[in-house]
């Protein structure tokens, strides 16, 4: 038997799924964290069944990727029972989707989730009355605490066994006639789709289904268009509008009848936004929160990084000594070890606390507030408020930054946000800025490099968004209520995300590291330097800088570590002038993101966009470094 979970974004559907299936889906107090569906085998009352978690969707109209995915799934796989998760504290909104699901001729059980939240808001929901009016089973649920989960699945199992179909709501007579007319046109054409829901969706001009149907039944599109014309003439709006507004009205009416609004308990959570979204204090709080966030990550990360790196260095020295008779093998081992160390000692110590902190901020519900506060600023770069998240993440590590662009709805926004987020100096580049510029030229210069970086990102954002055909659609964002996250979910989520790095990006890091060690073995440093000569010559940098720059693609801080080797000095001021230091650092900050980030870009956007972004960063790095060189020349 197959159960399908459907609900609107932020209704706690993925939380429910993870409760029964173990941690397999992304959850977040942020709309749209699931975009594809996840399946799992679950055991209830000794019976094994399949549970599918579909992406959160407001309707089944198919106007965004998540909705399309959900509708496609429902019309192509057979579901025995739909488990419709509804946020009880926002009943009227949630019932809109429920009414749509009742039409599908599949048994539906409605799970009223977040009953604790509803109670807190002073709502009393008449469950039996709702059950009566919907004509299907309704059960209460608090998924985050696991309350009501067992009862829900028992009910679903009963429904699946009995196969009791819900009664769908009736629309106005003209719409009902139109539905019947479409059904008569469909008659006998399609085997696995139930004609009635299909007719309704065709009438709503669902593109996916129309194109499917058009293949076998070419008259269907003109027929629907003619019916629609009539509806537009009578009602002033097309069928999809009339249908959804009737559902909307019906849902509001239903909610009004079953919900008793009592006294609302005003708590700290209601007061919090008066400070956190305040035009002045909101920004103060934002800075304090982000600063604390980074401080914690940085101190945790660096306290882990140093001993781990020392351990790997010792291991490397030890292994090289053993293998000193086999220089090629020794070089290979060193390369592998460096790749492994890059992951264990440099990325994970920052990534793990970062993901934990992020998961916490996300589950509390603070990230949408950040998006709200930063929306105006982000618009200047051609993005909207939600795109601030990848930027914040970028300062820790570009890998989760690129990962997080998934929350943006439009591909254009995802591309632009990814491109800009890779320009944000991550913790590894911070090492270069501090180790070179701050150490030899003073912290003020380092600060200027950071400000210069922000300026370049803003200008790049403006230029790219002017070149892209569409405009950002603007911010439409639900502000969730603040919630106290459970430690378990925060940890599980961090692990779930860290695993993506371990599985996707780390192997590439190790392979790249091995390839470079082979190049090193065959003494190809001269060739590399020659290859990079156009860049080093143009920027007025020493010829030997080529190798550190190439190795920097592997791990950004390698460009600093190897610089010492390449220039054969212990004190950089002997090998580089102040101007060269600044030029080098600015170039390192902007050029090609590290291999791990490239791998993530490829995963999120595809190979072509990954390559264009990499090319773009080199171009920007050249321009920015030249600019910085000019400015530095004036000063020194």
């Amino acid at each position, binding site marked *: 038997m197959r159960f399908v979970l459907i609900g609107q974004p932020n209704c706690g559907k993925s939380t429910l799924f993870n409760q029964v299936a173990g941690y397999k889906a992304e959850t977040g107090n942020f709309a749209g964290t699931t975009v594809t569906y996840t399946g799992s085998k679950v055991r209830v009352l000794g019976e094994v069944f399949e549970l599918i978690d579909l992406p959160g969707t407001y309707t089944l109209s198919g*106007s965004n990727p998540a909705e399309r995915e959900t509708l496609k799934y429902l019309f192509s796989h057979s579901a025995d029972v739909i488990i419709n998760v509804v946020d009880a504290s*926002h009943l009227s909104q949630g019932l809109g989707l429920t009414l749509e699901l009742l039409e599908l001729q599949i048994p539906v059980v409605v799970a009223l989730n977040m009953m604790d939240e509803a109670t807190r808001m002073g709502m009393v929901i008449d469950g039996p009355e709702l059950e009566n009016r919907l004509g299907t089973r309704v059960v209460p649920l608090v998924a985050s605490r696991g309350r009501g989960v067992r009862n829900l699945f028992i009910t679903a199992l009963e429904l699946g066994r009995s196969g009791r179909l819900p009664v769908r709501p009736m629309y106005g007579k003209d719409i009902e006639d139109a539905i019947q007319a479409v059904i008569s046109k469909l008659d006998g054409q399609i085997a696995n789709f139930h004609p009635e829901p299909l007719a309704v969706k065709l009438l709503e001009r669902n593109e996916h289904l129309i194109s499917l149907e058009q293949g076998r039944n070419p008259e269907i599109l003109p027929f629907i268009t003619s019916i629609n014309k009539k509806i537009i003439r009578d009602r002033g709006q097309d069928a999809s509008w009339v249908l959804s507004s009737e559902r909307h*009205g*019906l849902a509001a009416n239903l*909610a009004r009848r079953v919900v008793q609004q009592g006294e609302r308990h005003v708590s700290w959570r209601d007061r919090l936004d008066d400070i956190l979204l305040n035009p002045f204090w909101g920004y103060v709080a934002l800075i304090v929160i982000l600063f604390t966030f980074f401080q914690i990550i940085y101190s945790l990360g660096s306290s882990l990084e140093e001993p781990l790196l020392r351990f790997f260095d010792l291991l490397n020295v030890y292994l090289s000594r053993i293998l000193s008779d086999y220089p090629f093998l020794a070089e290979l081992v060193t390369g592998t070890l460096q790749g492994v160390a890059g992951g264990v000692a440099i990325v994970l110590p920052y990534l793990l606390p970062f993901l934990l902190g992020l998961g916490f901020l996300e589950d509390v519900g603070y990230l949408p507030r950040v998006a709200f506060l930063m929306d105006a600023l982000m618009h200047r770069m051609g993005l909207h408020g939600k795109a601030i998240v990848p930027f914040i993440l970028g300062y820790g590590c570009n890998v989760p930054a690129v990962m997080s662009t998934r929350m943006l709805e439009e591909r254009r926004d995802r591309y632009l946000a990814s491109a800009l987020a890779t320009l944000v100096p991550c913790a590894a580049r911070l090492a270069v800025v501090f180790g070179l510029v701050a150490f030899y030229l003073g912290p003020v210069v380092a600060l200027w490099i950071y400000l210069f970086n922000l300026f370049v990102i803003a200008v790049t954002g403006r230029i790219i968004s002017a070149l892209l055909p569409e405009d950002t659609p603007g911010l*439409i964002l639900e502000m969730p209520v603040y919630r106290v996250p459970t430690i378990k979910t925060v940890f599980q989520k961090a692990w779930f995300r860290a695993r993506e790095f371990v599985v996707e990006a780390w192997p590439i890091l190790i392979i790249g590291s091995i390839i470079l060690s082979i190049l090193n073995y065959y003494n190809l440093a001269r060739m590399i330097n020659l290859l990079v000569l156009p860049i080093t010559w143009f920027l007025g940098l020493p010829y030997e800088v080529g190798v550190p720059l190439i190795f920097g693609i592997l791990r950004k801080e390698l460009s600093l570590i190897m610089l010492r080797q390449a220039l054969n000095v212990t004190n950089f001021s002997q090998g580089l002038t102040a101007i060269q230091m600044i030029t080098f650092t600015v170039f390192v900050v902007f050029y090609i993101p590290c291999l791990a980030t490239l791998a993530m870009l490829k995963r999120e956007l595809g190979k072509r966009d990954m390559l264009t972004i990499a090319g773009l960063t080199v171009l920007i790095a050249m321009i920015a470094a030249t600019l910085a060189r000019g400015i530095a020349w004036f000063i020194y």
Partner: protein
Amino acid sequence: MDWKLVIIHSYSIDRINYKQGTFMNLLRVDSGKWIRVISISGGGGLDIKLRNIGFMPGDYARVIRQAPFGGPVLLEISGRELALGQGIARKIEVEECTPPCDLC
């Protein structure tokens, strides 16, 4: 159970009884005021996008706050909070109203 009993009329612009000249776009509403949505203009399927998240002409909402420096508008609509960017808020025509009694 009779479904027809619970259906209320569909909200659409032509059914709203309004006086000319009281409309404004959402940006011009002061914080704390109740509004009723009159229409959503602009292409790009904005009306569909908003409709899909349950925001339609005829709905009542309260403006909680307008963010500074051209930031988004925060609305309370049927018990939840929704932030709409300036570009979107500008395309939403509303009229100020007294709080509807079942929501106040």
